[in-house]
């Protein structure tokens, strides 16, 4: 018989405690971020697709077309196209093709780059209608968006 009342009181108490918890939660601020109107801050460690960094001094990329990235890429998604021009020291970069459909964001290209020409972008809004939209030319990307 005493078990009957103990069950009743402990049960009732736990119900009240639960209601207290929900009431307290109700007056706490909302944690949802209303995405298209508000955005979260992106962490600096975020790995978006790679980009060619625009150098602050020369205001152009730092790529010397050594093709280390192309050779080390495990997915084989990088193609560096360059040519030798008269009167210019070294190779001139014509286009830096990144096939982002294959890229696994391992970051080896960023690591091996001797001139630190590559970096990760903070780009996360990736949606498109065709896979061609994700075969980037990073040289053009830098010229247009950076």
């Amino acid at each position, binding site marked *: 018989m005493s078990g*009957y009342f103990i069950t*009743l009181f402990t049960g009732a108490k736990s*119900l009240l405690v*639960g*209601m207290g*918890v*929900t*009431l307290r*939660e*109700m*007056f*706490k*601020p*909302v*944690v*949802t971020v*209303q995405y298209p109107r508000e955005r979260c801050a992106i962490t600096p460690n975020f790995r978006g697709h790679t980009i060619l960094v625009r150098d602050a001094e020369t205001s152009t990329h730092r790529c010397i077309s050594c093709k280390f990235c192309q050779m080390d890429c495990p997915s084989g998604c990088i193609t560096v196209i360059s040519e030798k021009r008269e009167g210019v020291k070294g190779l001139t970069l014509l286009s830096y093709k990144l096939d982002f459909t294959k890229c696994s964001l391992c970051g080896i290209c960023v690591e091996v780059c001797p001139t630190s020409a590559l970096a990760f972008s903070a780009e996360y809004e990736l949606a498109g209608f065709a896979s061609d939209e994700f075969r980037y030319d990073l040289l053009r990307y830098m010229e247009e968006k950076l």
Partner: protein
Amino acid sequence: MHGTLQITAEIVRILVALVVVIGFTFLNVLLLGYAERKISGRIMRRPGPMEVGPQGLLQLVVDGVKLVAKQFITPVESAGPLFRVAPLLAFMPVGLSFIVIPFSNRLQVRDLDTGLVFMLTVMSLNTFAILVAGWTSNSKYSLFGAIRSVAQSVAYEIPMLLSLLSIVFTANTLSMKGIVLAQHPVWYVLVQPVAFLIYFIAGLAETNRAPFDLPEAESELTAGFHTEYSGMGFSMFFLAEYTNMFFVCSLAVVLFFGGWSGPPLPFMDYTGAVWFLLKVYLLLFVMIWVRWTFPRVRFDQLLNFCWMYLIPFSLVNLLLTAVVVKI
């Protein structure tokens, strides 16, 4: 000549009451639906509907329009006419129950001597509508929902009536207005707190609200008794459910919280409705709050709770009330 005028006046009165009742029903459902979604959102620390209108205010209106525009699908194997009648049956008590609710001293359609009995009778018709809907849908989910609903109602009607009986003993009347007037100095929630608790819990079960929402347990029965209903058929059940919540709470206010009584306002005979509605919506808030706090009970737990706790307690409460009243 005088007779015709009286009849015309009465017809106009009925029409106006009907329009007010239907209008109020829809407004109440819009309000409660919005409150339900906003409060559930805040409890889960999300904002709730935000897109349609400022702060998502028009969301329920848009939902209503969508439901009206949708086709009413009748399953081939269902019992045609009865299947169509069931939502109407669920909606019917809505108009009837408004007759006896005393919103304020003068705002009451009819003060029946047996108002309380009338109200309870009409409210229990909802179970009947659920049974018809579940039976005629020819779907296992609907039938299970209906069976659960009936078992639940049969079980919970007893403690509800027993607890209300102790109120009737104290007030010595069955008229809604009479009960309100009988609580002039002290509200009955202070005199009969156990009766109020039992009534409120049974009321949650009667309206199929969580944690007693077994008849429409989404995770087990898809949608329970209204699985096969679409469009207006579904919205009728939806309207009936939310209006029933309103009735359970307004009955609680009439019986336990002194109806329209409160700090006096100008034209208290009419503006008492402000206090009445304020108390009703506070109770409705508690109902929503309970729903978003507790998980659904298992069916044996539901019936055990009723037979082992609610009924004995309401019986003891009734007995004590009877003894005290007699002395």
